[in-house]
């Protein structure tokens, strides 16, 4: 039985990304949740499921939000879990555990002074600790090691990564809520300081405060709400967790191929049917790995593929039209999923993809996920 178009997103709420001192993850989540409810004019009593992410505890959040849902879950505060949480919500609705689920994400990383390297580096459940005596730490450095190898195997260049950063920055300039407001050039990227070489500062995502909420329900119920439903047309998950404290040999190609097969089959679409992409861009090389893994180009050809504006509005595959993690804010995939919904509703103003009908979200990580959204049944 296919889950194609069985569940739809009816409400979206976000905060502008930036610094929001005095708000913890619960507060931030509640703000987005209220906005998502206003967006679809739903009453809290109509929501019978709750999934929170990065917000530490579902019990406390539900207490603050005044809810007693029939289905409640917290997922780990890792970006790869955004797509996964959306899939769990769709599956739970299809299974009848709930009919309408609020997904609420709150991130106070900036105000909390979160660091993704050093003694507090808990990547892979703390599996990276043994490398600290050699100065190895941070997801950014792990991606630098991966990209160095990609350069070696396929001749990919830092200038090709710059094309990604420039594309997403152009989009951020069209998004009033995005953190980054200044245009950049390829040369600006090349001149920006190295953090973990070969990666420059402009290859890194932006740690900020912010929140996102999505409300999903059955396709049947979705038609009763004011805005056009955005259907969850296909999705999939796979993993590469064995030895995942070290970089994968294949840039997660194998699990991405699995997810691609599953997701495109469920959605019944091909690459060329897609009007836009939302690509998890914690670091710019991830975009290259993702485009290869999902078959937009052959393995090793991701570098040339992203050049010449292909990912920009007006290009073949406009991507991360909100500015992405690189130039909007690191909302761990959630803002990209919200952007997909808004694009398909035609709500994106200056950054609107014309006549967008199908958009795919993808996340390359030890746990790979993808969701394809569509306007039509």
């Amino acid at each position, binding site marked *: 039985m296919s889950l194609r178009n069985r569940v739809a997103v009816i409400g979206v709420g976000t905060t502008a990304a930036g610094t929001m001192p005095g708000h913890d993850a619960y507060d931030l989540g509640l703000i987005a949740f209220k906005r998502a409810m206003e967006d679809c004019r739903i009453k809290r009593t109509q929501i019978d499921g709750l999934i929170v992410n990065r917000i530490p505890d579902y019990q406390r959040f539900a207490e603050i939000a005044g809810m007693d849902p029939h289905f409640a879950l917290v997922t780990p505060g890792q970006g790869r879990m955004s797509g996964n949480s959306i899939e769990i919500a769709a599956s739970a609705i299809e299974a009848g555990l709930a009919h309408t689920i609020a997904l609420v994400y709150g991130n106070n990383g900036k105000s909390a002074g979160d*660091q993704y*390297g*050093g*003694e507090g*580096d808990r990547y892979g459940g703390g599996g990276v*600790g*043994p*490398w*600290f*005596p*050699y*100065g*190895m*730490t*941070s997801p950014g*450095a792990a991606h*630098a*090691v*991966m990209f*160095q*190898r990609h350069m*070696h195997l396929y001749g990919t260049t830092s200038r090709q990564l710059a094309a990604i950063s420039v594309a997403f920055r152009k989009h951020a300039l069209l998004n009033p809520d995005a953190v980054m407001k200044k245009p950049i050039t390829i040369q600006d990227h090349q001149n920006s*300081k*190295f*953090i*973990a*070489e*070969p*990666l420059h500062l402009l290859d890194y995502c932006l740690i900020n405060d912010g929140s996102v909420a999505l409300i999903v329900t059955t396709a049947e119920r979705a038609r009763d709400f004011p805005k056009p439903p955005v259907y969850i047309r296909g999705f999939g998950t796979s993993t590469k967790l*064995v*030895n995942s*404290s*070290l*970089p994968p040999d294949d840039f997660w190609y194998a699990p991405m191929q699995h997810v691609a097969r599953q997701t495109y089959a469920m959605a019944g679409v091909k690459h060329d049917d897609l009007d836009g992409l939302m690509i998890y861009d914690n670091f710019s090389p991830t975009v290259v790995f993702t485009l290869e893994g999902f078959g937009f180009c052959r393995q090793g050809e991701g570098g040339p593929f992203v050049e010449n504006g292909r990912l920009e509005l007006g290009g073949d595959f406009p991507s991360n039209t909100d500015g992405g993690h690189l130039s909007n804010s690191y909302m761990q995939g959630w803002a990209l999923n919200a952007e997909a919904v808004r694009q398909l509703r035609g709500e994106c103003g200056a950054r609107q993809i014309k006549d967008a009908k199908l958009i795919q979200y993808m996340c390359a990580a030890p746990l790979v996920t993808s969701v394809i959204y569509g306007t039509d049944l």
Partner: protein
Amino acid sequence: MNAPYTKPLPAIDDRNRPHWAGNAAGELRVQRCDDCGTPRFPASRWCPHCLSENTSWQTTSGKGQVWSWCVFHRAYFKGFTDDLPYAVALIELDEGVKIYSNLVGIPREQIRIGMRVRARFEKVTEAVTLVKFEEDK
């Protein structure tokens, strides 16, 4: 008197102690499953390949190649501040196990993926000897 050592030190426990004792003795030791023979590192209780708990420590050749590497321009650990920029390499040992470490005596512009390297040992405190790698010519 030497300046105090300020870089992160390993958490040595009963499980990983043979590795650190090996370093002190000038041998690079990794775990090897007694049942299926699969080598592994860092130390773990269970063999991820066959889930056996039976394990021994094997002295490796200490030889391998640079699988990839990066250069830190930011000190996430205070003790590394004076080393910036410093390289970290992921070494693939000939026994098939990968290990992050540092390269000694190889200028950064000469580091190459596939470069042959061999272990050398560097005593940094009374209790801790690190394993680093130099070019194996």
